[in-house]
């Protein structure tokens, strides 16, 4: 007898109840209570496979509960509580609803034991999370949100294609370890890699997350990429290509972070970098490596939420998001608590001993050593240097200290953020230290038995050497590392510039050609009709046709005054909606 309910149901119920409640306090209570109930429910959940539904000849599994799914579910639920506490002052209920749906669907992914329920939750995750970007209500966020959802829908289609091919080939709907030599799993892998933001599919992350709302971005950092890490760990452990993609990814984010001026975009590039360690660990595939990848996902969610909350707090109180607008304004005097909490997150991501990044990142690097992968070990080591350089040194220096040649010496009205934001950061920072000091708390949850001791003296000394000399080099180059008022183009250039041109080309010349063909064909039919009615009028018909001026090439490229796609898209959407309703009705009646 199972005494618990699927965790995603709790979040979806929370999301549905929230808009019905009028009282502000009650709303806040429900929003915070949902993760607490989910956590208590998770503790009750026994290991095993349950909540199965028969769907035609397939069996849908909503509860595959084992060590791997539980460790991810635990951190997702903790992160949802911290992020919700950070966002609790927000009055727009829609943001909370979207966030709860987002978390719920992520938990659906984590416990899915079949590909169909995985796919449904996967899509719901994308559809709900995009609202956390759109609620920022700026034109930049609207556009970034559209790009985000287009990329994720493309990823969803690739995943669906993979699932269909896999079912056709094997007849199995089970979500398990796949054999990459077949076509279906290849598509499934690409679908997962898009969500994990693995280059060359990564540009959506750095494009969209910094455009999200201050509170929504904290949710975004935790769930999409880490749920992709979970599914990769579940289905493709030991896949060689992941080792290289992960190691390259870890460095890729570092390079962009040097150039970045937008404070949250810099952190977004470091998500790519840190997820690189996890992807690499999954690719290495040994027990230590898989443990390392899972532990790093756990720790990463905690410290990255603290970092995003810290930078979100800076944007909240100053209204500024660029380092060039913040540096040299002495913000550390106005926000000492935020700075302290941010630095705990920064030390954690940099793997300073006693902070949680140290107990997980070293596991992945040690796994590369154990498997005698020298290049991978060096690349990951170098990425560690870059992580401390940017997140631990450059960013806090640029935001809270730094030099400013302008006249503004302080930001008027800046101060600490609201109490709930500080509490959320404090809770995140506390957990970063707790898991850093007592690694066994986390190690006992990992999928495989752990025989790893991060606090061996030689490991601590090696890490301190690495970090201290990074600090020394930073000190030498400190004047070169301030923000610069530029943006860096990434691979999203391909769909933002040539893509836009392709769209314009399709809209004007191609659409015009279509319209003209339609016009002349109809005209010809009309004239043939006239001719068949009265063959003696052929002379008039020909002279009329001769008088008409043909369309010039120039006219084809002229932009119409109104967007010609407004109406067709509307009609298309309406037709799809009607079709969907009919489909549901037909489905229900059977």
């Amino acid at each position, binding site marked *: 007898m199972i005494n618990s309910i699927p965790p995603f149901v709790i979040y979806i119920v929370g999301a549905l109840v929230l808009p019905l409640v009028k009282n502000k306090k009650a709303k806040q209570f429900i929003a915070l209570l949902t993760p607490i109930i989910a956590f208590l429910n998770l503790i009750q959940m026994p290991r095993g496979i349950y909540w199965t539904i028969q769907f035609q000849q397939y069996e849908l599994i909503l509860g595959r509960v084992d060590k791997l799914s539980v460790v991810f579910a635990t951190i997702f639920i903790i992160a949802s509580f911290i992020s919700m506490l950070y966002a609790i002052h927000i009055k727009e209920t829609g943001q909370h609803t979207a966030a709860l749906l987002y978390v719920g669907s992520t938990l659906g992914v984590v416990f899915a034991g079949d590909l169909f329920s995985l796919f449904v939750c996967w899509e719901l995750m994308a559809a709900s999370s995009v609202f956390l970007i759109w609620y920022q209500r700026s034109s930049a966020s609207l556009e970034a949100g559209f790009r985000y959802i287009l990329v994720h829908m493309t990823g969803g289609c690739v995943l669906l294609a993979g699932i269909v091919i896999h079912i056709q080939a094997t007849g199995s709907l089970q979500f398990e370890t796949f054999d990459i030599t077949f076509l279906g799993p290849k598509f499934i892998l690409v679908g997962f890699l898009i969500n994990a933001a693995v280059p060359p599919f990564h540009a959506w992350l750095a494009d969209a997350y910094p455009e999200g709302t201050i509170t929504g971005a904290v949710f975004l950092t935790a769930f999409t990429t880490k749920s992709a890490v979970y599914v990769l760990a579940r289905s493709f452990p030991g896949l060689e290509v992941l080792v290289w993609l992960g190691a390259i990814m870890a460095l890729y984010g*570092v*390079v*962009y972070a*040097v*150039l970045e001026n937008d404070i949250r975009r810099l952190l977004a590039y470091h998500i790519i970098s840190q997820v690189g360690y996890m992807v690499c660990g999954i690719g290495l595939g040994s027990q230590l490596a898989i443990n390392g990848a899972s532990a790093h996902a756990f720790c990463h969610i905690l410290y990255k939420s603290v970092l995003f909350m810290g930078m979100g707090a800076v944007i909240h109180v100053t209204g500024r998001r660029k380092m060039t607008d913040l540096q040299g304004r002495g913000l550390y005097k106005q926000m000492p608590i935020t700075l302290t909490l941010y630095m705990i997150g920064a030390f954690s991501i940099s793997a300073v001993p006693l902070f949680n990044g140290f107990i997980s990142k070293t596991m992945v690097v040690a796994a590369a*050593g*154990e498997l*005698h992968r*020298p290049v991978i*070990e060096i690349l990951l*080591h*170098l990425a560690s*240097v*870059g992580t401390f*350089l940017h997140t631990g040194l450059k960013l806090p220096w640029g935001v809270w200290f730094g030099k400013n040649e302008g006249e503004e010496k302080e930001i008027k009205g800046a101060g600490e953020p609201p109490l709930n934001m500080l509490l959320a950061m404090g809770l995140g920072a506390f957990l970063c230290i707790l898991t850093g000091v007592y690694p066994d708390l986390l190690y006992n949850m990992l999928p495989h038995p752990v025989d790893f001791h991060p606090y061996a*003296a*030689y490991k601590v*000394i*090696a*890490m*301190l*050497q*690495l*970090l*201290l*000399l*990074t*600090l*020394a*080099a*930073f*000190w*030498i*180059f400190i004047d*070169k*590392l301030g923000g*610069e*008022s*530029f*943006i*860096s*183009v*990434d691979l999203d250039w391909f769909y*933002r*510039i040539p893509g836009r041109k392709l769209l314009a080309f399709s809209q004007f010349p191609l659409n015009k050609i279509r319209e003209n063909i339609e016009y002349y064909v109809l005209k010809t039919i009309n004239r043939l009709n006239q001719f068949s009615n009265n063959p003696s009028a052929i002379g008039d018909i020909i002279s009329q046709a001769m008088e008409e001026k043909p369309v010039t090439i120039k006219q084809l490229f002229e932009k119409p005054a109104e967007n010609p796609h407004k109406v067709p898209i509307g009609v298309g959407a309406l037709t799809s909606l009607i079709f969907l309703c009919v489909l549901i009705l037909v489905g229900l009646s059977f």
Partner: protein
Amino acid sequence: MMKKLRRFLIIVIIIVSVLGFFFPYPQPHFWWQKIPIFDSIFGFIGCIVIILASKWIGHTWLMKQEDFYDQ
């Protein structure tokens, strides 16, 4: 203040680097793990390489005006 900090940093670096000689890797997997101050050297050179290489790549190819996508 900055001078004191710098002096403190140098002292700590020296201590940690010397400690590297007393606590070697018990089972080195690669030749560099046998060098007691390898991580110090790697951290310092690695950091400089990251800064210079990234800035060079950025200024040569990647960095554009802020309204690049709005044009």
